[in-house]
């Protein structure tokens, strides 16, 4: 129980392929989504309309990108990235701030680049220097958010109207562009995680760090890359939000780190590494989006969402810790 991210033991081999438990665990996310939909349609007649559901997805597709990156971070045993709000803000501020200088599309790439650089700082400190990820990202988040505020003098940056901005904020084939981006990125990352060596490295490093290092898996590179990826995706998240609301301010991503972590653990990805899936994180994002929508429709104040997110995080992690103890694997 030291603060260093300790390697976990090997995970137990899965038992019979289609036991009752595994069917339940595969179906649990779709079941939860259906249950929330039923609950929603009881609570409010405006819930089960196409417009509302599209809005629900749209509101969470940007932060969903950060959750996709966090899935890699969690699987490779990097716990979580708490600097997400800072990289989201950096991406948004740079993309809008540089828009008038270099044009909107290069500015967007610049924003993603700067956010990825933030992720690189995390990656080097966590992957190569091997400092505890939570402390590193907490400190780097504090630092980068300060830098972001310094950049704009604590104020707001407004977007200049551009064809690119209108496109990103608009619809494509009946769905908002940011929803398309979320699903396309999710698909690419799903293939990366399940079908490429890099994906397998993530599972190996998170499952057993020492054994992976001894088997010539680039353990430090893998862990660092997961954080660079999360920084990059958080930058994209910031740009999507900034372009769709037409402005960016340093607090634009406040609380997103918790949404990302909770979406990841709802999807059954362990924060302690070694198992997880992108598709299930997508499910987690949808569940959180529906819960948020329900809270809004019932008329509870916004902080209730944070309360719900935090409680879900706690319950899911406690169950994970219990199951790991029962199967003899120490978290």
């Amino acid at each position, binding site marked *: 129980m030291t603060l260093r991210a300790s390697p976990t033991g090997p995970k137990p081999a899965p038992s019979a392929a289609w036991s009752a438990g595994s069917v339940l665990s595969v179906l649990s996310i779709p079941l939860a989504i259906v249950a929330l939909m039923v609950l929603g349609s009881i609570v409010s007649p405006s819930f089960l309309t196409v417009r509302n559901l599209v809005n629900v997805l749209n509101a969470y597709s940007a932060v969903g990108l950060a959750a996709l990156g966090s899935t890699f971070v969690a699987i490779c045993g990097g716990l979580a990235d708490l600097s997400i709000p800072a990289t989201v803000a950096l991406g948004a501020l740079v993309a809008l701030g540089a828009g008038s200088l270099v044009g909107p599309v290069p500015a967007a790439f610049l924003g993603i680049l700067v956010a990825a650089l933030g992720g690189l700082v995390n990656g080097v400190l966590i992957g190569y220097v091997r400092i*505890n990820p939570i402390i590193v990202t907490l400190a780097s988040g504090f630092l980068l958010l*300060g830098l972001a505020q310094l950049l704009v003098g604590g104020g707001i940056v407004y977007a200049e109207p551009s064809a690119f901005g209108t496109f990103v904020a608009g619809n494509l084939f009946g769905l908002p562009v940011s929803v398309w981006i979320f699903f396309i990125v999710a698909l690419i990352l799903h293939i990366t995680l399940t079908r490429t060596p890099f994906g397998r490295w993530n599972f190996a490093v998170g499952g057993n760090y020492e054994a992976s290092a001894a088997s010539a898996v680039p353990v430090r590179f893998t862990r660092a890359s997961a954080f660079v990826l999360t920084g990059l995706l958080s930058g994209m998240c910031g740009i999507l939000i900034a372009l769709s609301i037409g402005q960016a301010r340093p607090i634009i991503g406040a609380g997103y780190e918790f949404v990302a972590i909770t979406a990841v653990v709802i999807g059954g990805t362990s924060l302690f590494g070694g198992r997880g899936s992108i598709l299930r994180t997508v499910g987690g994002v949808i569940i959180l989006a529906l819960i948020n929508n329900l809270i809004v429709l019932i008329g509870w104040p916004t902080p209730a969402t944070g*309360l719900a997110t935090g409680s879900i995080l706690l319950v899911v992690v406690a169950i994970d810790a219990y199951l790991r103890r029962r199967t003899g694997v120490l978290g």
Partner: protein
Amino acid sequence: MSANLRTIGNLVVRYRLLVMLAGVLIFGGFTQDDFLTLTTFQSVLDRAAVVGFLALGLTPILIAGQIDLSIGSVMSLAAYATIALQPSLGSLPAAFVGLGVGALAGAINAVIVVALKVTSLVATLATLLIGASLALLISDGQPVSSADPMFGLSLTNELLTVLSPRSALFIAAALIMFVWLRATPSGRNLYAVGSSMPAAISAGINVNGYMAGIFVLSGLCAGAAGVLQALSAATGSPLAGSALLIPAITAVVIGGTRLEGGRGSSLATLGGVIALGALTTLSEYNGIPSYTQAVYTGLILILLITLDRISGDNGGRKTRTLRRAAVKQVQQHGGTS
């Protein structure tokens, strides 16, 4: 040459508190005419008391190799309770309720970490979010003004030239904690828990009891920070402690307490709090905006934990050694598998 540099580097890491204090004093003396005065010292101590209590609570936690990320949120809850309950309970009972809120939140953390066996990092991350949301929910996002603003005003008065009542409380608490950690068996056992938990368990130390105790203590200290802040500002803000987690961790780490556990001292924390407070006061004298303070606080923290990591053990080289050993083994056995 490089060995010399390494020695100097290690010395700077070890005596960083003195290096930092000297740096602040020299820089302050040059840039501000009236920086090196007792008045400045009194104000630094006074304003450091709030972060100081947070950092004090964190010290035993870090010694035991744990972390409490929820202290900022707990402080906000306590600060709000202290002021919001004044009209119905009276000022003094409300302040005790504020302390109680802190201890209760600490007890909840203790249950989650000890009974539910959730790693303290993740457990207190969740309670950080829950506490912050709860404070905003109860207060409707608005700070309350005290019904009895004169009650807490005396906390920041001058006392014996260099102190104020609240900085005196903080220093007294740091001294009591120092005696506890150094001179009592229970304090020494805590270091054992942080150095090696399996060894501590084998030695018959009630590890769970210590773990629960330090989380309650940390909550209580966060509560004290909230009560002091709220009373002296005569306002209960639901965001009172939201930005103080990093400064508190930084102050503890400046003092030399290590995140890996097993080492640390409350007097070192006292020094770290004073050093960081002096730096904050200096940057305010020079008109540096608050977000710049966030930048350098974050930088100092990252720099120090990196130096601690590099100078402490060569963990970065461990993977290379492992791989080399594995390769050698394969070569020796001819790679037939």
